[in-house]
């Protein structure tokens, strides 16, 4: 396949290495400043299965550094918006999205479905959760953290190596260390640190070079200085992570990745009566489907217009590709507006169906 030619012609990788990449499963926690470059490069590299978990939606202030997003996806869940962009980059891989919060209840079961976990989170609470769940699920964790102009990278739980708790045993007091949204961050910094994380992921998969295990790489963007610090393994600290087991639901039940968003085809939709069609595209998006007589509620304004939704009717939501309509249903579910469905097809396919079958 010519897609991976620049990898396969490297004698250190070759087709054999590329096959390892194709067979790998990587879960990225957080599709933000760090997660975006990680996802971009791992998708380009052809990681066979990529998971993206993020409960947050894209906002304008993200665009300064979160390179997978543009103005067209403002208000859309980050995992879903990232998938939309990444599928254009590489549609030969599987991308699972989890537009929800990572919790003690779902983390371990989710991690068990993957080979490598990447931490792109933005708060200590989740970082310690990710670390402990990685220990319990026995998965290596590629860590990255940033502060204004400085970044840290390391690989934890790799081949019995140290964990995040060996570096920083206990979470700092809430609010004692500000995050990017509170204090600001140089836009390229997460690009640099996230790219280093993607590099560590590939090294682990390819078994190439020296994985950054047992070391913390520190980078200062203003001085271009890097420092590498040795981290010693502390069984006692790892034990603490393991002792948190009772807080976790470690039953390896099938993780619910279908996100329970009801989807139907346009054909099925017409089988129902008393429908309210909702077009969640932005007002300038074409073609309009006037024959459905939809309510026009762009996704970005949906939450402010819930009063326009008819509680007596079955809500059938569509958009250009069938992705934003899913986000819309999850927003409605959040507000306990049930009986809402996302149409699988996009606007063009819906029109084609109407033209072929009549309404």
């Amino acid at each position, binding site marked *: 396949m010519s897609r991976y030619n620049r990898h396969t012609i490297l004698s250190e990788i070759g087709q054999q290495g590329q096959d390892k990449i194709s067979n790998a499963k990587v879960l990225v926690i957080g599709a933000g400043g760090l997660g975006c470059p990680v996802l971009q490069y791992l998708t380009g590299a052809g990681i066979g299965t990529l998971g993206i978990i993020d409960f947050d939606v894209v906002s304008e202030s993200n665009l300064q550094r979160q390179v997978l997003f543009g103005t067209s996806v403002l208000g859309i869940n980050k995992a879903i918006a990232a998938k939309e962009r990444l599928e254009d980059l590489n549609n030969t891989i599987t991308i699972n999205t989890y537009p929800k919060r990572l919790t003690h209840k779902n983390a371990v079961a989710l991690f068990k479905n993957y080979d490598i976990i990447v931490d792109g989170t933005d708060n200590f609470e989740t*970082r310690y959760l990710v670390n402990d769940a990685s220990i319990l699920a026995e998965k290596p964790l590629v860590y*990255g*953290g940033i*502060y204004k102009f400085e970044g840290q990278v390391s690989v934890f739980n790799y081949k019995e190596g140290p964990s995040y708790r060996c570096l920083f045993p206990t979470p700092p007091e809430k609010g004692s260390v*500000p995050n990017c949204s509170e204090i600001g961050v140089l836009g390229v910094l997460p690009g640099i640190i996230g790219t280093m994380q993607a590099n560590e992921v590939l090294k682990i998969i390819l078994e190439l070079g020296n994985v950054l295990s047992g070391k913390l790489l520190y980078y200062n963007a203003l001085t271009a200085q890097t420092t590498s610090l040795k*981290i*010693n393994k502390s069984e006692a600290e790892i034990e603490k992570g393991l002792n948190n087991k009772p807080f976790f639901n470690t039953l390896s039940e099938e993780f619910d990745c279908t996100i329970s968003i009801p989807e139907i085809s346009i054909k099925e939709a017409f089988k129902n009566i008393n429908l309210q069609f909702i077009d969640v595209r932005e007002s300038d998006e074409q073609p309009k489907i006037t024959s459905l007589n939809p309510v026009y509620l762009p996704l970005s304004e949906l939450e402010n217009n819930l009063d326009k939704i008819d509680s007596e009717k079955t809500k059938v939501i569509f958009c250009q590709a069938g992705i934003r309509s899913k986000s819309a249903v999850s927003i409605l579910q959040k507000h306990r507006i049930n009986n809402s469905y996302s149409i699988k097809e996009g606007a063009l396919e819906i029109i084609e169906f109407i033209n072929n079958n009549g309404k």
Partner: protein
Amino acid sequence: MKLTIKYFGLLAELTQCNEEEIEFSGANVSDLKDVLFQKYEALKIKDFQVAQNNELTTNKTTVTATEIALLPPFAGG
């Protein structure tokens, strides 16, 4: 002995310098922290790790190197 202390992240802001020299006559990292806490009271409530010779230490580690780094955790992502 004279030690060069390097401060990272928000610790550099707190101390208003990236690095400085201090005179140290104590034995271990815990003693060193006491010296630094006296100089910068606000350090007391901060979480950080101390490295010497680019290796993380514990409170009981004997201070042998002249270059020490204070490293806080980074939340952002």
